[in-house]
């Protein structure tokens, strides 16, 4: 069976994860940060699906987990966008550099 090896897929998901993390830590725009978070979540999804396929081919647990993560990502996006709208109304900006009120 001519198959793509698991390590290739894991390499893609790891790359995706660190791209998302880089975006999360360097972008100042909240929407871009949200997109980065989605990237991270999707890298996890790829992991789940890949491991399910390669290690436990007769089961569907990994796929179910992926479906849950997609649902939760949708809900999280809704909450995050609500926060952003509220932030924008207060600060006229969605730059995270300006939201540093909560400190010592």
């Amino acid at each position, binding site marked *: 069976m001519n198959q793509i090896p698991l390590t290739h897929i894991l390499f893609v998901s790891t790359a995706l994860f660190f791209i998302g*993390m880089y975006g999360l830590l360097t972008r100042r725009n909240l929407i871009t940060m949200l997109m980065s978070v989605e990237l991270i979540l999707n890298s996890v999804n790829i992991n789940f699906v890949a491991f399910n396929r390669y290690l436990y081919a007769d089961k569907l647990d990994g796929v179910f987990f992926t479906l849950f993560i997609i649902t939760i990502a949708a809900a999280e996006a809704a909450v995050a966008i609500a926060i952003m709208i509220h932030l924008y109304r207060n600060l006229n900006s969605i730059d995270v550099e300006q939201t540093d009120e909560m400190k*010592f």
Partner: protein
Amino acid sequence: MANYNYIAWIPLLPLAGFVLLGLFGRRRFRGFSGILGTGLILAAALLSLYAAWQYFGAGAGAAGVTAGGSAYKPILAMKFTWLSFSPGLSIDMSVLLDPISVMMIVVVSLVSLMVHIFSLGYMKGEERFGTYYAFLSLFSFSMLGLVLSGNIFQLFIFWELVGCSSFLLIGYYYDRPSAVAASKKAFIVTRFADLGFLIGILILSFYGETLDFGTLIHRLTTPSPQFLSITSASFLGFSLLSWGLTLVFIGGAGKSAMFPLHVWLPDAMEGPTPVSALIHAATMVVAGVYLVARLFPVFSLSDPPALGVVAYVGAFSALIAAIMACTQTDIKRVLAYSTMSQIGYMMFALGVSKYGGEGGLGYMASMFHLFTHAGFKALLFLCAGVIIHRVHSNEMNAMGGLRRQLPLTHICCLIACLAISGIPPFSGFFSKEEILLAAWQSNKLIYGVGLFTSGLTAYYMFRLYFSIFWRGPHGVRQAAGDPGAGDAHGSTPVSMNLPLVVLALGALLAGLIPFSHFVTSDGEPIDTHTPLSFSIAPVALALAGIGLAAWLYGTMSDRPRRLASAIGGLYRLVYHTFYIDEIYAFITKKILFNLVGRPAAWIDRNIVDGLMNGLASFTAWISALIKGMQSGKMQDYALYFFTGIAGLAVLFIYIWKN
């Protein structure tokens, strides 16, 4: 057996008075707080008299049948378990009736009643009138509870309550710094003594394995296992029984102002005068005598050396207090030292006594003297109250010639002075003769001290009497010159005169009570017969003392001053009461404060506080160091989070990988 359940009401009525007046005395009951307190103590006094009549009179038949003789047996009127720790150890509350407790409830409730009535006039118009009566009721409750206590721990509780109410009443005029200082002094000195008392209780009850007086006395006077264990255990060469009894006596000595713990009593005269009459003359200060009498069988049968301590401390206190009383000029301080001296009499009478039969004369005499002394000393203080009310001064030098202005007080005071001096047929004569007789039969040295002191007593009492009521027109002019003194109060109110008359009748007639038929060491009545020839020496000495006082103070003269300067240094030594207060002050301020207080303060400030401060500043330093991490920036937090996760991953995958 007769029904004695009502006895519990005797202390409970004043307690009710305290609660009611303490809660409502300032507003709602303000108008009649005095009447309320007095009415409740009147009821308690009537119940006490009825109890005495039942116990000594009608009850004697019933008790006699059971005892097979005419002895008065202790009766446990009621008893319930208050705190139960284990089957063997519980603290009970009980009411014990025996000759001395019945005699004491009569004395306490009657004197308390007189003082309550007297205070209606004396304290009239005081700002905190209701509070005053609340405190008086608290004291009456505590004292009645003390004398009725059936076990030693219950007695200790009431003992402390009495001390507390004494503290409250000495400091009644709390806006006066001297009163505040006096109340603190009384509290601290007696607390110091009570520490000894508490340790004594612990020793006795640990080895006696009971707190109950009857069982304790029985176990410690017969060769029981408990007796053998307490006498065989020893500490510093004395048996633990001696230690226990001596420590209990220290507690009694503190409360009864025996040397060297007497320093609080003269200062306690800062309280209102009726309070001095009740607490610091008639009742509370004899609690120490009562305590020794309560444990008397143990002292007498098992441990004569401890009883010897009682005798010598009592005799020495009697003598030294009488000497100090001779030089004081504050009328209440003279009476305070006189109280201390008379309590010394009671103590050494107990000390020279033996248990049972004719040998128990000293015990009976001591209780008799307690009884008569309560009457005439309360009378003296109340007279002093009338005089201070009139003259607005405690100084004898500001008085004089008051016999025309206060004729009734003059007569009453004269009776009391004659009674305390031991002139027949006044009450003090009978009790003092028996004390001296008991001392004569047992210890000639103590007899000599007692005899000399009785002469001194007559001298200083009549020095007081002549200074106040005679001694020329000096005082009259001063009293008349002070426009407020004579007119503001007019004649003395009935409420103040009535107690004087009642107590004067008591001082006149109490000596005729055949006391030895009622109160003896073992309950068996004894007959006392003082030989007439024996009375000659004390009475002659007393008359000599009166004569000397009359010569020195009967008229205005400079004789006292010349006498004082003739004996110069000795006079100053006595006038400053042997500098005992200064010695105490030196010991506490110079030695205790410097050697114990300052190092303790240094340790507290530098080591204890330093440890705490160091901890706090270390925490502050750490937090200052790392608080920058909490920047408020979301991405910093995300970075920390990922770093932490990565760190954990490295830790678990490469380091703790089993």
